[in-house]
């Protein structure tokens, strides 16, 4: 396939057709922040942090780089006042849930976000879906999923599968930007794994 030629932050970039902007940028060392992206997973487009400005035939628009395919002749800007403002707001919204997440703390510093801007709601999970998607797409185990919808959505281990599949895997643990995943796992394990030998009853 032929190479697509375009520009990111003033630098000419070449990439294969079908590559996403994010991949193309990272391949030449241009960093764009992400929370829900993982190279082994299908692009999700959920956190919206990787938003960038694209100028295409005179039109400027905002797109999320993890799903936007490269195109000949476009001019991409990965930082601007508008982009930074959107990223700052997104980080602030997420810090209402996970104020001390190291990943978010570092981003907050970069974008001048105030972790106390919005009223706290300590659910810790920021719904990046990395664990759920990794388990399904890479590990192929489907040991956890999302339950409910919207603001009530939560990640949830499925005890019957997790009891079998998780103890010697746990590959999703380091993916979680807030450490909530481990907590959810421990909670599920203690509450409902069918294996009674690990339950409190056996310790008596």
């Amino acid at each position: 396939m032929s190479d697509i030629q375009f520009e990111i932050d003033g630098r000419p970039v070449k990439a294969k057709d079908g590559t996403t902007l994010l991949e193309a940028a990272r391949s030449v060392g241009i960093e764009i922040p992400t929370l829900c992206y993982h190279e082994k997973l299908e692009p999700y487009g959920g956190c919206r942090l990787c938003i960038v400005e694209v100028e295409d035939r005179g039109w400027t628009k905002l797109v999320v780089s993890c799903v936007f395919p490269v195109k000949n002749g476009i001019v991409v800007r990965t930082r601007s006042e508008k982009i930074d403002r959107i990223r700052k707001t997104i980080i602030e919204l997420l810090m209402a849930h996970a104020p001390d997440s190291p990943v978010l703390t570092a981003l907050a510093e970069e974008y001048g976000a105030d972790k106390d801007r919005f009223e706290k709601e300590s659910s810790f999970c920021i719904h990046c879906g990395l664990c759920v998607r990794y388990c399904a797409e890479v590990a192929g185990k489907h040991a956890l999923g999302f339950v409910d919808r919207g603001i009530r959505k939560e990640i949830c281990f499925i005890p019957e599968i997790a009891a079998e599949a998780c103890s010697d895997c746990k590959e999703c643990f380091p993916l979680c930007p807030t450490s909530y995943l481990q907590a959810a796992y421990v909670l599920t394990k203690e509450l409902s794994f069918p294996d009674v030998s690990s339950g409190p009853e056996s310790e008596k």
Partner: protein
Amino acid sequence: MARIHTPEELEAYRQQILSRKDPNRPCISICAGAGCVASGADEVIAAFSEEIDKQGLSAKVDTKGTGCPGFCERGPVVVIYPEQTCYLQVTAADVPEIVEQTIKNKKVVERLLFKDPETGGRFAREPDIPFYKNQKRTLLCSNIKIDSKRIDDYLAIGGYSALRRALFEMTAEQVVEEVKKSNLRGRGGAGFPAGRKWEGSRNAEEPIKYVIVNADEGDPGAFMDRALLEGNPHSILEGLIIGGYAVGAAEGYIYVRQEYPLAVKNISLAIGQAEEYGLLGDDILGSGFSFKVIVHQGAGAFVCGESTALMTALEGRVGEPRPKYIRSNIKGLWERPSVLNNVETWANVPLIVNRGADWFTEVGTEGSKGTKIFSLVGKINNTGLVEVPMGMTLKEIIYDIGGGIPGGKKFKAVQTGGPSGGCIPEEQLDLQVGFDELTQAGSMMGSGGMIVMDEDTCMVDVARYFIHFLTDESCGKCVPCREGLRQMDRILTNITRGRGKEGDIETLQELSDTAIEASLCALGKSAPNPFLSTLRYFRDEYEAHIKEHRCPALSCKELIAFYIDPEKCSACGICRKKCPVDAIDGAKKKIHIIDQEKCTRCGTCFEVCPPKFRAVTKISGEPVPAPIDEEKRMVTKKTKKAPVQ
């Protein structure tokens, strides 16, 4: 019924149906749409059948349950043909009188006719009633003429002749061209030109394509798609089959919400009948074109009305939107070219094919052609479905068709476009309805919801209500929508409860910007509209709530108090007896006082205080006057003032 094999057989069969019909034979049409059924239409239909039998008239008179004619406020609606006598709010008890008077003696039952609330004049014929007279009903007009469960009724009014014409007199390209020329724009919300969408799919390389009906009507207060699906399902089916032919699809889907059981039933029945007649399935009318239709019931998520979420749901996965930088008419359902149009858009297709694009473009504004159905609800006299030409002004819809605001109240705003639409104030009432016109006014066409609000409506609370609805319906996939709306809902709730603070408006504006610019799908991108449009036209109300803790519409419970004016109270005791929390102190001949600590601001006292006293008032933003001294509380007979000499 035997299968129809050729277009000639179809026309012959149509003639056969028509020859059996005597246009002068009396026919009693009773609306069997969901609204009228809820008001007892089933009993009325049963009563008519029974009465007609009892009187031995069954050989001379037809009775049929039909689709919704739109005047839901006054249901059950009965129209008697050929005179088109229209009776409203008919009960089973009225039936013997109607049969005796109107059917047997050709007389009109005065008391069941529409009465003009202003002039008191009555209208006997349906087309003369102002509600109908000022409409242009090219789609809805068929509803009352047919029994939606009978394909023969649809054939009798010319049904499936557009399909015949498309299959035998036009190439697929010509059909696309005709729809393009008509400039039919999507009736579901975005207003994208249907013809261009079709053309994109038609020209796409992938050989397997789909056409889909979006019947996931989820806007609060909107029911036009339901009325069409329940009342005239074959018209949508015919449109869809034509679409399949034009685009080159062999399969069509109808995504209908599960909460519409009658619509599901009627469309499923229609599909079965069309298959039996050979109008759907393999080799339709011998044309060589084969097409099948599958009904898919949605599981109750508002977001599934969004195109990519709907397609994801159709694929059997969680109904969440997916990022798209390639349009779904190129890469949609199962990554194949998919044309998704709204119910009303599909219903227009047979009319355009039959009567031509030029006929269609005769009506409308520069950018918006044809008619549009609106569901007119809220503080309006004539609640119901109205179909008007594009370009009619809001004022004409609200006053000439809707009959104005009930109870002598003042109009304040009309909310159009569903929850993510906007509020349009009185000074813009001369605005013509059209896709571009409504967008310019800060609202949108949406699927055609129109909620009228009067002076008692608090616009901040309206914004809170819709943002809350959208927060609840957010799928939760992307942060600007899920988290942004959650915070907006929280801030707006605080403002309406008197806990607003300086800077709230600016924070809301920033969250709105983020949602508009960075959300994944149209739900998130348009969600801030209720806030932005109310801020645009009613900023003073926001400021009054935040700075003065005052609700100018006297509506937000936490910001108002009820107070009995001692000058006006006559100690009648009604409010004291009706108060559900015993918050009113008083006795015979003793002026009543509301205990503000106990009062729950339910407003009962305000409603029951007799108009001749009007002693109970609402107060907001100022302290409640101290109760009068105990010794002054006895009511003394008010003496008439001595006449001025």
